[in-house]
């Protein structure tokens, strides 16, 4: 979950300075700031329970193969339609996941989730409007959106990839419902929206067992970008 927020936040930040509109330049930078802030807070909790030094160690000192974000986020920045399609599929998945964590028995997580939900509402509003705008504008915008959805389709449900320790999370009252159940809810919601916009339905996840591994070349490149400063001077502070 922390890796998801970190990777999408970093991908969003790639639009800073080059987004198609000034408002969107600001929006993507603000979204990136939100998501990276969420990642930092989640990594912070994780560092506390695992005894790792700090959030930065988790964010920057791992090899690409050790990241556990959803493969939905592994397709490179792409064009604007790709960015909107990825953000839409991710934000709607994240909303369903957050709802299932809001009563987590582990208080620090439940408290943080309570805060995250309030911010994510604006993310959903933003990306929902853009999805509608691209889908209902004929010609190139809609064509590009369809192409992006076709590319992301097989990986679209990977936020819900079953976790090895899922039974333990359910038993401990951290995760309210199994991820498979959450995925069904999410797909039903998406189906209704897509039908309204006359968008093709999403295919099932291609390779569910590898939903959070085998990240590929686009992520290898992204990893080399976001670890660049850390690698050049591990003691740097910023």
């Amino acid at each position, binding site marked *: 979950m922390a890796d998801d927020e970190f990777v999408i936040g970093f991908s969003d930040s790639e639009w800073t300075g080059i987004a198609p509109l000034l408002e969107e330049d*600001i929006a993507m930078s*603000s979204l990136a700031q939100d998501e*990276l*802030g969420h990642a930092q807070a989640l990594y912070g909790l994780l560092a506390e329970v695992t005894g790792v030094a700090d959030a930065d160690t988790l964010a920057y000192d791992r090899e690409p193969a050790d990241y556990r974000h959803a493969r939905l986020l592994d397709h490179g920045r792409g064009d604007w339609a790709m960015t909107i399609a990825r953000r839409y599929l991710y934000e709607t998945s994240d909303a369903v996941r957050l709802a299932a964590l809001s009563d987590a028995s582990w208080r620090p997580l439940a*408290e943080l989730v309570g805060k*995250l939900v309030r911010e994510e*509402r*604006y993310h959903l509003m933003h990306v929902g409007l853009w999805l509608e705008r691209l889908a209902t504008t004929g010609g190139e915008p809609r064509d590009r959106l369809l192409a992006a959805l076709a590319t992301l389709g097989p990986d679209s449900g990977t936020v819900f990839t079953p976790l090895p320790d899922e039974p333990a999370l359910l038993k401990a009252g951290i995760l309210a419902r199994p991820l498979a159940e959450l995925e069904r809810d999410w797909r039903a919601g998406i189906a209704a929206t897509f039908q309204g916009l006359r968008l093709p339905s999403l295919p099932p996840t291609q390779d569910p067992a590898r939903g959070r591994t085998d990240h590929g070349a686009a992520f290898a490149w992204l990893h080399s970008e976001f670890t660049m400063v850390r690698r050049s001077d591990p003691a740097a502070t910023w």
Partner: protein
Amino acid sequence: MTQVAPEPTVEAVQRALGEVLDPELPVLSVVDLGIVHRVDLDARGIRVTILPTFVGCPALDVIRASIADRLSGFGLPVQVDTTFEVPWTSDRISPAGRRALAAIGIAPPSEPDAVRCPFCASASVAMDSAFGPTQCRSLYYCRACRQPFEALKAV
């Protein structure tokens, strides 16, 4: 120059916090902004617990430093912690804080469909973008007085 350290009481600390301004909205004190969650005072020093407005708020370190700086006059060790124990919500902004925001042309937080123009109070406004110059603000346009303005997000 000698300065007599003021008597450290919770009330005196609260009053001092009323002079610490938010770096992104410098018309609001941290008290008006509603981020001061708790002030604890004992033999070990002053401990202030604040609520981040946004999880990734980049101004947080500045706020922490300004609080420590302002309270250093009490001559006690100062510790500033953050917590998500209760979420900061935009309705924690005080009435005085809301007036101060409106006076500089920033609409105080309300649900996106209930935002009013801070200049002419018209309800005929449109959200241009959910995201503005800082994490906590959105961009709006007033159709009545044709003035673009910012509104604090209702989180």
